[in-house]
């Protein structure tokens, strides 16, 4: 798992530009046969007994989109996903073709209110013509990550690489009798766009999503439910994400009998992805398994053990009779 996470961290996959990561996933999934649709969603299907289960993970990174190239070669951009101005200043961003840029702003003095329209990316191009050879309007870039491994923990990983790493492990080894489609979905950071297309195509009886969730075991973290690294995968409960109580109960039993320690959490915000996926489904039960991540402005610390256990748990529950 550690190796997969490290490998995927090296591949830049901004929303809408996940091709390179998709190719790597297809390689990892071999000899399983993967299908790719026009959006770039990758699916691997195990045909089997009903009910039809769809397991989703997003594969894209948080990103920015270039909307203008200045005559002196600087790039102007918009945030594509939920990124705040101050999270980007001074950070290195990378385009899928390898072009690297540094994010700057027109004027940053004390008391300046940063806004994206005053920010730019310096890719080292001397003029517009040179810049146009490196980057096109509409291209996306994601933040560069160079994780380090310390024991079981991974420091500085892109948290967006965790769900796909877990799903790839399970999809490759799954040999159960259930009908399962594993979907590696694009544009998840833009509100489950790829996932929504897969859902309308696959029309599943049950949906399981693999995600990451903020760990709360950091100094003076506001008093939320304690979610610690190394204490196992997280089962998302509660009304915000409309997970199914019956399915969740089976997941809990499965974890207990397999000796997998799990934590439970209520999601504190209703994100657009959840809303969108729900609007695509007609009353289909849903469950979410997440890995706790200490998230520091897009770079995270995780325990690879939690990811390994999440994969183990997923693999076990897919063999259970989850719905009547």
């Amino acid at each position, binding site marked *: 798992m550690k190796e997969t996470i490290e490998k995927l961290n090296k591949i830049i996959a901004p929303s809408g530009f996940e091709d390179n990561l998709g190719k790597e996933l297809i390689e990892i999934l071999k000899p399983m046969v993967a299908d790719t649709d026009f959006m770039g969603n990758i699916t691997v299907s195990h045909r089997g007994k009903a009910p039809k289960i769809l397991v989703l993970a997003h594969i894209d990174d948080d990103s920015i989109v270039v909307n203008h190239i200045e005559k002196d070669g600087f790039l102007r951009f918009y945030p594509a996903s939920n990124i705040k101005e101050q999270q980007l200043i001074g950070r290195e961003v990378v385009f899928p073709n390898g072009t690297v840029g540094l994010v700057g702003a027109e004027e940053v003095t004390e008391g300046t209110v940063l806004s994206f*329209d005053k920010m730019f990316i310096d890719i080292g191009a001397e003029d517009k013509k040179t810049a146009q050879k490196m980057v096109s309007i509409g291209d996306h870039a994601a933040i560069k990550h160079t994780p380090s491994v310390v024991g079981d923990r991974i420091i500085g990983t892109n948290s967006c690489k965790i769900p796909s790493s877990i799903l790839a492990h399970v999809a490759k080894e799954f040999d159960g009798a259930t009908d399962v489609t594993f979907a590696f979905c694009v544009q998840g950071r833009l509100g489950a766009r790829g996932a929504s297309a897969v859902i309308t195509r696959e029309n599943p009886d049950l949906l399981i999503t693999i995600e990451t969730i903020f760990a709360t075991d950091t100094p003076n973290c506001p008093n939320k439910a304690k979610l610690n690294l190394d204490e196992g995968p997280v089962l998302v409960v509660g009304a915000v994400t409309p997970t199914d109580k019956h399915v969740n109960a089976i997941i809990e039993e499965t974890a207990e009998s397999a000796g997998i320690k799990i934590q439970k959490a209520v999601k504190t915000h209703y994100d657009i992805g959840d809303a*969108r996926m729900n609007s695509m489904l007609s009353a289909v039960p849903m469950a979410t398994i997440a890995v706790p991540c200490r998230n520091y402005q897009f770079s995270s610390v995780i325990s690879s053990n939690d990811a390994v256990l999440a994969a183990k748990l997923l693999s076990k529950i897919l063999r259970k009779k989850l719905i009547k």
Partner: protein
Amino acid sequence: MELLKKLCDASGPPGYEEEVRQVIIEHFKGLGFEPITDHTGNLFFVKEGKPGKPRIMLDAHLDEVGFEVIGHSGDGDLRVKSIGGIDDRVLGAKHVLVGSKKLKGVLGMKAPHNQDHNEYYAVVPLKALAVDIGAKDKAEAEKNAPLGTHVVFDTVTEEWGDVIKGKSFDDRAGCWVICKAMEMTTDCTLIASFTFGEELGMLGAKFSARRFAPDIMISLEGTSAGDMPEVPEHQQCSKMHGGPVITFEDKSIIIPRAYREMLEDTAKKSKIEYQYKGTVTGGTNAGRMQFETGGIPCVVIAAPCRYIHSPVSLVAKKDLTGMIELTKAFITRIDKEGLPQ
């Protein structure tokens, strides 16, 4: 331009698009098409092509931003709320048309000498405005404009040389382009989709997509022109007279690169001047249709409109004809080469 004028002068805020539908139905009847409707208020016309050829949907929304009556005051004024996004700063003292009878009205407000210091220096919000239709009391106001009556800006479409002035190019410009494009000959199946309620959150799009499951959707839109003083180049959405606007991304969709490039290449080969939508803002029905029925590739072609979502917008004739040419050229290319793989 006669049809465009009729379309723009018709009243049709979200949910109240009947008048616009009638204009379009009448136009298509003249061309021998039978209207297809659904319970939501979407309107479709289908031109069957040859089997095996791509099924292309041309989509524009029927609605415009407007208001609806939510109450009546003792003085006979109407209280309204906006349906669709309208900036409060463009509202005061504007002429409006109320209901299908098109009663004349004005968005009245407190006189400056009645305003306290804070009010005087603040933007007057819609809730502090009332539509005055000249009714003498509440009973008369209720009789002439009952609850749920729609209200639109009173703007007559006019030609100003190379430019047209009107209230609702977003998205009657798109409706007009579809009306014109449907006259073309092609072996592809063309589905004209006129959807309701886009301004309230793409309400009609999913029903349209699910009903026809097209192979590609071309969204024809009106978009914001940003060629105004003090707007830096990188914050300009588009420029009037700059040709049809091709979207690479907005808040609702990333246009699939292969499809966008095919559209751009078509414009270049057909020598149609075009421009990018320069800002990543707004959204269209494409944002909703892209993930219906397993995923539908969408492109967006728009007319640059100055002062969009206000009582008066301007659009250049050249940009509109460019939109029609580009749409037709793109369909012809799809017919010839098929869709990108």
